[in-house]
């Protein structure tokens, strides 16, 4: 007996037995839908950022933060953007 022949003889086709369905189910359950949700969240972030900038520039906010300089206000804007990004990321994952 040749070992190579015996090894080849051990090959056998594996029937699907619902395996493909299990894979497709896992993909739908495990992986987030990246495309549309991400596009949406991107625009939500941009929207919140623009709103934040305008709010900071408005006279009301400027009155409140009148003692703050431009760089401090910029930090506030960045913080707002970060929070918006975190919130939208949670929305996507959910």
């Amino acid at each position, binding site marked *: 007996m040749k070992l190579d022949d015996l090894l080849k003889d*051990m090959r056998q086709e594996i029937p699907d037995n619902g395996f493909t369905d299990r894979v497709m189910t896992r993909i739908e359950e495990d992986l987030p839908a990246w495309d549309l949700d991400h596009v949406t969240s991107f625009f939500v972030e941009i929207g919140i950022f623009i709103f934040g900038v305008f709010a900071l520039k408005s006279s009301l906010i400027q009155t409140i933060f009148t003692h703050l300089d431009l760089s401090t206000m910029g930090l506030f804007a960045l913080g707002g953007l970060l929070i918006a990004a975190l919130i939208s990321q949670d929305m996507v994952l959910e």
Partner: protein
Amino acid sequence: MNSLSKVSDASGTSPLADEQLIRRAASGDAEAFRRLVTKHQSQVRGLLLRLTGFDPQRTDELAQDVFLTMYETLSSFRFESSLSTWLYRLTSRHFVDDQRRRKSRIVEVSIETTPEPIHCDTERLDLRKSLRAALAQLKDEERMAIVLTGMEELTFVEAAEAMGVPLGTLKTHVLRGKEHMKTFLRQNGYEVEL
């Protein structure tokens, strides 16, 4: 890759070439991806079954992971090799990573868990069990080299690429693996030639 909600035109049941299916699946065609899984599941699960020492549960879990990775990375497939070769490489890496996590050098032999073809006679059945046991007692790299070259019939170059080792190392694993199998089988009453 797009979400699975987008479904193909389902234009028929004629077999499509891998390249067409990959391109369609990478653009979000869930039906095309499903066909790829159905087409290649036997290759991936067959390889994993032999690598895991015929453990059907672990094989199923790992095979699912392989196809999930395939789903995530299919858009980066460059058609420089066949999908089969790419899947062999992906499967081998998944197995190696999983084995590393388990920190086990020798897999458990679960001979009874996978049914044998019903046409096997007793003597043949015993031989197959011994072959499985011989395969299972090999080191991971030896088993992988034997399975890829001896059972999956990849060339040495393809197998080396799939395992991510130099050609010379692959040949050494094959030779040592076969010698170990021969010794094991002799101890179990079977004389085989290399």
